[in-house]
């Protein structure tokens, strides 16, 4: 720009000089020509002035831009350093909360011989804390704070409060195919434990037979998945070692099995001579979607085995088959077939087993376009269990889920129970409001 304007200036000056150096002496230059040249010089002068102004403007703009860049730089730096300092940026809390009302009919007594409760209210707050250390490391802990009204044995109409850990685990994503999990983990025996939370369960009560399996255990696990093709199909796996079941009193009697795990405390408060061998287990699943969303089948096989008595002479083992089917956005069918076996000194090998199947149909599938009806899902479940020691129970559950929003559910169920255990109530009515956040 400068060179240009200088050049223009010089040209203009030369012109003026040239013009003034050859005034009227040369008769060849007419007035007309002179005036024309004068005009040209004036125009050049104007152009030169304009250029000068333009240069000043541009210089100012450049200055402005530079200060702006400096400011933005500073802001970016401040922001990134605050991201590093602000741990809350990587911290997320999710979870669910439930309020429950239940009324039981029939049934002789509770296991302690007290008259059976006739209604209770339960409130449950189950937050899950997630802390992401980086893209590959996640710490997750799920808690359960529960107020259970009128359910304490021997204290009719009293309430109990409990705080428990559902899981507390560290996840380390090692590569695309494998994640290491360590800590207190939900166990992949079937899918129910890993996929149970208030906002997931369409029936408040657990299926029969889940009490034959440990829900969680301390240990380590490797898990991951392999995609098959590009249709969304995949094979999933989980392999773990965890503190297996133990004995509540040092013995290997059938009644002494404690699925809660080998935690080191006996029922009398002393530390027991617990077995030191862990249990090993795992699950393999196959997920097959066909035709895009809402049409899929998942099947899984899982198991666990390890010694349970302190002497380490008797094994507790389990095998579970699970399946889940979706046909369209409205219909779901799922269930599990649960088997477990454990050796005892008094009853030989005990074989508790159970089976449950649950179907759900969302009335939105009828395309009735009615406000409340279209937000209702009808649910039915059949479950049956035998504890391997003479007690067997069958149950039919029929109910509904009313979706107030995608995470606020109002559920109601009626259960018909048939058992040769007199303590088991005959029927039960349950309402639950659950919220996932």
């Amino acid at each position, binding site marked *: 720009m400068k060179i240009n304007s200088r050049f223009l200036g010089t040209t203009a000056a030369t012109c003026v000089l040239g013009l003034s150096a050859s005034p009227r002496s040369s008769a060849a230059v007419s007035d007309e020509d002179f005036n024309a040249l004068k005009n040209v010089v004036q125009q050049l002068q104007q152009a030169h002035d304009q250029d000068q102004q333009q240069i000043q403007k541009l210089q100012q703009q450049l200055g402005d831009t530079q200060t702006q860049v400096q400011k933005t730089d500073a802001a970016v730096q401040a922001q990134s350093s605050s991201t590093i300092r602000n741990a809350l940026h990587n*911290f997320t809390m999710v979870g669910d909360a439930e309020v429950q009302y239940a009324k039981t009919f029939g049934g002789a007594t509770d296991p302690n011989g007290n008259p059976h409760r006739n209604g209770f209210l339960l409130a449950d707050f189950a937050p899950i804390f997630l802390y992401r250390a980086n893209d590959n490391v996640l710490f997750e802990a799920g808690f359960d704070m529960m107020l259970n009204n009128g359910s304490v044995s021997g204290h009719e109409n009293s309430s109990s409060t409990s705080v428990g850990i559902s899981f507390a685990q560290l996840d380390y994503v090692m590569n695309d195919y494998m994640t290491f999990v*360590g800590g207190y983990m939900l166990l992949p025996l079937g899918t129910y434990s890993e996929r149970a*939370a208030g906002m997931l369960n369409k029936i408040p009560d657990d299926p029969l037979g889940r009490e034959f399996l440990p829900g969680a255990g301390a240990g*380590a696990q490797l*898990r991951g998945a392999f995609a098959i093709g590009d249709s969304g199909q995949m094979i999933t796996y989980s392999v773990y*070692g965890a*503190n297996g079941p133990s004995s509540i009193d040092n013995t290997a009697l059938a009644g002494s099995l404690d699925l809660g795990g080998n935690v*080191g405390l006996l029922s009398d408060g002393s530390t027991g001579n617990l077995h030191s*061998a862990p249990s090993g287990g795992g699950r393999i699943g196959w997920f097959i979607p066909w035709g895009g*969303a809402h049409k899929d089948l998942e099947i899984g096989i899982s198991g666990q085995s390890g010694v349970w008595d302190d002497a380490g002479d008797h094994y507790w083992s389990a095998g579970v088959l699970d399946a889940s089917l979706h046909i369209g956005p409205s219909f779901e069918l799922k269930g599990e077939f649960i088997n477990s076996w454990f050796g005892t000194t008094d009853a030989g090998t005990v074989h508790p087993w159970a089976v449950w199947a649950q179907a759900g149909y969302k009335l939105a599938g009828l395309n009735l376009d009615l406000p409340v009806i279209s937000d209702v899902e009808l649910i039915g479940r059949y479950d049956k269990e035998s504890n391997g020691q003479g007690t067997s129970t069958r149950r039919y559950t029929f109910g509904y889920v009313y979706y107030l929003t995608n995470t606020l559910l109002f559920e109601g169920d009626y259960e018909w129970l048939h058992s040769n255990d007199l303590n088991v109530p005959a029927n039960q009515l349950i309402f639950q409001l659950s919220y996932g956040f």
Partner: protein
Amino acid sequence: MKTIRCFSNIVIRPAGRLILAAALLGGLAATLLAAEPAAAAKKTGPAKKKLTGSELYAINCNRCHQERYPTEFNSAQWQTLITHMRVRANLPAKQAKEILKYLKEEAGG
């Protein structure tokens, strides 16, 4: 004391065996599956395109629970939640990444 000894026995010693078992299993699965994608591609032909993040979201994110809409959380929260779900639901890495991209694009802030 006993509990401590017990703990170390239980958690550390089997880890080696476990990793070995898992590695064997993983290796086996990888070998079995390595051939699969090629076979699947042949069957469906080149016309079939890869599933997008939103399609994968539609297939996976409402089969265990009601759908959680992308706008319910912000990008940073989704980054955390996708790892949570990837581990819990055993989602393949590539699919989780595609879904995360979709969720972040549609996220509420």
